[in-house]
């Protein structure tokens, strides 16, 4: 036992890195080869996101703000895909904006991956529009509260917003009944709550998908100021399973496309990594208490 404790105490941290790499890579290989994913049971926060979108009637405008960049893509891209998938299936008018400089490219990729691939009947400028990036962080949000066209005067493709059918009837941000933000930090979900939701007097509802780092800070806002929350990759996987099960044709056994299973695929590596973390915490505690006991014995 004491030899084992000595080994633990002097363990090179690179062995832990190697164990983490194996615990993540192993499930990726297994899931990638077999196509099997872990089952998901949606929690109330993920169900709330689904319900808020489902409650809107077809043709209702929704504002989708892509406030992230590729650095957070591993967590947030699956959410973006599923959110746009549900909005497109519901027939909502999707108005995309970005408060992060790399957001417009991620919007284009999502449009290509979901709308152009699976909903080719939806027309750009009529059923959806990408308004691109605006610098200014919170000030853009404040301007949108009084004059939406002032904050976003032209689309990403350079068309004046006055000529865009998808923006018909939109003068201010509170003309959107629902705001969906996919958030990786500042500016993001917290700022939308502070500057738009608080000032709109309940006219606009908001749901968000955010990174794991942001999630604990956003829970206090749910469910009063925030109507739905997808926390990290777990929230993405729950919501993804909910959307997939609701959109799957009842009389078909066709497999769900891989792009709509991205978050569920990532839960396998999560399981491996978390099991390793738990094992390391237990081993660390065993080493700590054994060391403390031996010190006590030595002093007495």
């Amino acid at each position: 036992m004491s030899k084992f404790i000595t080994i633990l105490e002097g363990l090179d941290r690179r062995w832990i890195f190697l164990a983490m790499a194996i615990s993540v890579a192993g499930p990726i290989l297994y899931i990638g080869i077999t196509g099997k994913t872990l089952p998901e049971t949606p929690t109330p926060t993920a169900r709330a996101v689904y319900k808020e979108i489902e409650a809107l009637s077809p043709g209702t405008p929704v504002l989708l703000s892509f406030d992230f960049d590729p650095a957070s893509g591993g967590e947030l891209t699956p959410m973006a895909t599923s959110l746009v998938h549900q909005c497109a299936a519901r027939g909502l008018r999707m108005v995309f904006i970005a408060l992060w400089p790399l957001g417009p490219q991620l919007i284009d990729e999502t449009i290509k991956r979901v709308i152009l691939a699976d909903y080719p009947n939806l027309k750009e400028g009529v059923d959806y529009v990408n308004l691109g990036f605006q610098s200014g962080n919170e000030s853009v949000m404040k301007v949108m509260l009084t004059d939406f066209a002032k904050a976003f005067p032209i689309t990403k493709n350079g068309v004046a917003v006055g000529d865009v059918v998808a923006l018909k009837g939109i003068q201010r941000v509170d003309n959107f009944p629902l705001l969906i933000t996919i958030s990786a930090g500042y500016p993001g979900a917290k700022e939308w709550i502070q500057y738009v939701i608080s000032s709109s007097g309940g006219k606009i509802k908001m749901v968000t998908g955010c990174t794991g780092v942001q999630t604990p800070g956003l829970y206090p806002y749910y469910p009063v100021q925030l109507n739905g929350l997808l926390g990290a990759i777990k929230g993405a996987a729950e919501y993804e399973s909910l959307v997939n099960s609701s959109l799957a044709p009842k009389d078909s056994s066709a497999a769900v496309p891989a792009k709509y299973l991205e978050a569920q695929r990532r839960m396998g590596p999560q399981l491996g990594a978390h099991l390793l973390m738990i094992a390391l915490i237990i081993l660390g505690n065993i080493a700590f208490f054994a060391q403390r006991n031996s010190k006590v014995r030595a002093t007495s």
Partner: protein
Amino acid sequence: MKPSKTWVIVVAVIVVLVGIRMTIGQGMARAYVERIDQSVEVKANDTHGASTEKWTEWHPVAPKKFEAAQKADPSQTKFAFSWANTIGLWLAAFFTLAIFSFLYRDNPGYRLAEAVIIGVSAAYWGVIGFWDTLVPKLFGALTPNLVHDQVLPSLPAPTNGQVVAMCFALALGLMLLMRLAPKGGWISLWPIAFIIGVTAGLKIVSHVESDLVAQSIATFKPLVQPIVSSESAQSGWMLWPTIWASFANILLVIGVLCCLTYFFFSVEHKGVAGRAARVGIMYLMITFGAAFGFTVMGRVALLAARIEFLFDDWLWLIDPAGKRIVEVASAIGSMLC
């Protein structure tokens, strides 16, 4: 830095494994593109007549499509191997591995990747700042005709108020640059004071509304929260949901009060106050644990995304999206299933 023997062995093993992988099955890490011919009708105006502008775009495509097209017609030109995208793919794999190599120890590959990230990010921010902020907002207001004719034909003409505001912003921006001048650095204090004042003004109101008032209201919860079945409203409370909802509300109220007591230093933390503060510490510890757990989950998701990229796009070991026809892994998959 002289590389250690172990380091050389690790790199050599990786290179050998990648070399072996390249010779198995269809090989690995190749990118293909599809040629799409585009055209647009240009209407006649005062300076030129009607015309048709044509150009060719090359869009990334799955290797499966290229293989199928080649099989049907080996002389086809619609799909092609892309050197540029393939080099990009290899560079992405190299930089991913270079960043990961820091886990072993600092090395020239890691430092190269780090320098490239910093350089590219700085350049990207510079370009974004110029084209997305200076051109549409500053030049669009001060030289609207130039911007309208040369860059953004749809940009609305600025109002007088916008022009005045942009002159003010330009002046503040130039004053801010005085920080770099050998003399007159104090001039930059004025725009800094302006920025701090505006930011504080914006934030105070929103924080009070959303974080103080709204959060205080959200804390006023009934200690007994009756839950009635939506299906049979007349049948009374649902026992277990009512107990759980009430328990959650009680925990919330106790947590808020105890955490506030912990941060209340005007009273010595003894007796009732001491016990409440101790409970507050426990709540805080649980909160930190939950935050740590979420952070771990986030970081593992990012790691999984990069490893998935290496296995799927680079090594062609897995193929969740069905981008390729025959895979080394598919044979193993059929055995496992």
